[in-house]
């Protein structure tokens, strides 16, 4: 399998190690009331789909970045590669903006901003791919 690294271009999968389902980015809140259940699910239960699967790969023998790779588990085809940090940051900023904004209008702007940010990141990635 060849993973198209957003910074480094196509790299062989053997340079990477895989952690598992990308939902591991979303660590549950340990102070929440249902933390027991949430951590049980987080740690042990998996969707394990046949088909598209978002998963965390670590470029261990490269730039040591974490990637979110969308891969088809039936064909091994890699559909999309993104930096895990971008995805985590986007999720966090979305969360904090949603939490901060009290008006619906504010929420809308936040969502729009995140969307714009996402597109921007994607564009940069594509640019880097070419170079």
């Amino acid at each position: 399998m060849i993973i198209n690294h957003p910074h480094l271009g196509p790299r062989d999968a053997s340079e990477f190690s895989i952690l598992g389902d990308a939902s591991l980015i979303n660590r549950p809140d340990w102070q929440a009331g249902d933390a027991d259940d949430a951590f049980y699910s987080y740690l042990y239960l998996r969707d394990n789909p046949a088909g598209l699967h978002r998963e965390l790969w670590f470029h261990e023998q490269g730039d040591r970045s974490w990637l979110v790779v969308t891969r088809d588990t039936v064909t091994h085809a890699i559909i999309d590669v993104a930096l895990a940090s971008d995805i985590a940051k986007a999720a966090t900023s979305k969360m904090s903006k949603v939490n901060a904004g009290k008006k619906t209008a504010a929420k809308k702007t936040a969502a729009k901003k995140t969307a714009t940010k996402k597109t921007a990141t994607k564009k940069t990635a594509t640019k880097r791919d070419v170079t």
Partner: protein
Amino acid sequence: MHYSIWSLINQALTGNRNWAPVWRDPEPKSHYDIVIVGGGGHGLATAFYLASRYGMKNIAVLEKGWIGSGNIGRNTTIVRSNYLLDGNEPFYEKSLQLWEGLEQDINYNAMMSQRGIINLYHSDAQRDSYVRRGNAMRLHGADAELLNQDQLRSLCPFLDYENARFPIMGGLLQKRAGTARHDAVAWGYARAADQRGVDIIQNCDVTDFLIKDGVCTGVETSKGTIRAGKIGVAVAGSTSRVMAKAGLRLPIESHVLQAFVTEGLKPVIPGVITFGAGHFYISQSDKGGLVFGGDIDGYNSYAQRGNLPVFEDVCEGGMAIMPMIGRARMLRNWGGIMDMSMDGSPIIDKTPIDHLYLNAGWCYGGFKATPASGLCFAHLLARDEPHEVATKLRLDRFRRGAMLDERGAGAQPNLH
């Protein structure tokens, strides 16, 4: 038809015209007492033991493809009981005992060959850990012998004892371990179950479970609705996919494991040999091919094929301990889908849905477990309580923190 030397002679003298089909090909009935989903080794063994040891009647095995098309026909045929943990060793030892009497039980030649397994050790620390494991095995009634380098040399003179990186210092031998003809195990169980009235229904895809108020009452299949008193699922690599239809998320990931075979050679390898410093295991089939394997590929997969880096890694493992195989030509390689559990140990248990039972999480050790898995799953289905050697193989052990982690790798399925 009972197979024996007399039936063989009789058929030979009559021109082999009277051999009967080995099992029937029945249409499914609308209701069974017990339906087993999955016609692999474990499912067929379950049906056989339900009928033969628990006196159950009216049983069906539903198989999506043809029986023996999954991992029972794709493994490296190794049978052993060299485990460490209390929750595992009695189970696998029970399995080995069943293997020893299997051919008589099912009246079928499974080519069970107790040619022994040797786990090599390469350091003093590893020797100590093998002593510990050997003692654990003996405490549970299994056999284990620690070999020093001289003893090992007399058995396997061809190993690379002078390897600078991984010197071979000795091995842990289990003489009763060995290999069995994997396809024959599936066919033998199928035939024996069929003779006891079990309906084996092939090309019958389970598309949904009938669940009402938390009770499972049957399955929807490509051959129509089949109602059942109890439903047992034993579908290995497809476990998550099938159980998702019942709304369950499980502590399982599906991974691909590759296996390899060379051209046929004269007898060179006496039993099963495993590398202690990497992951490599090898035996020689009765046809002469060297059958070997190593690690799983490491990423989730439902494709029954893997990639080349693992291929290379496995071959490097082989070359590190027995350079003589370097000139053998590869004949085939293939892959199977493993139901890797979160602690590397299996699950034979009820599910949160009444009358729905689960047999899964075999990682890549399912073949050796086939008889005990069938027996324990049959016990659970018939009696609604776990068999005495399977009391720790529970689905809720992850929530309780009662993991059976032989390797100590934690909740990381691709490391087990």
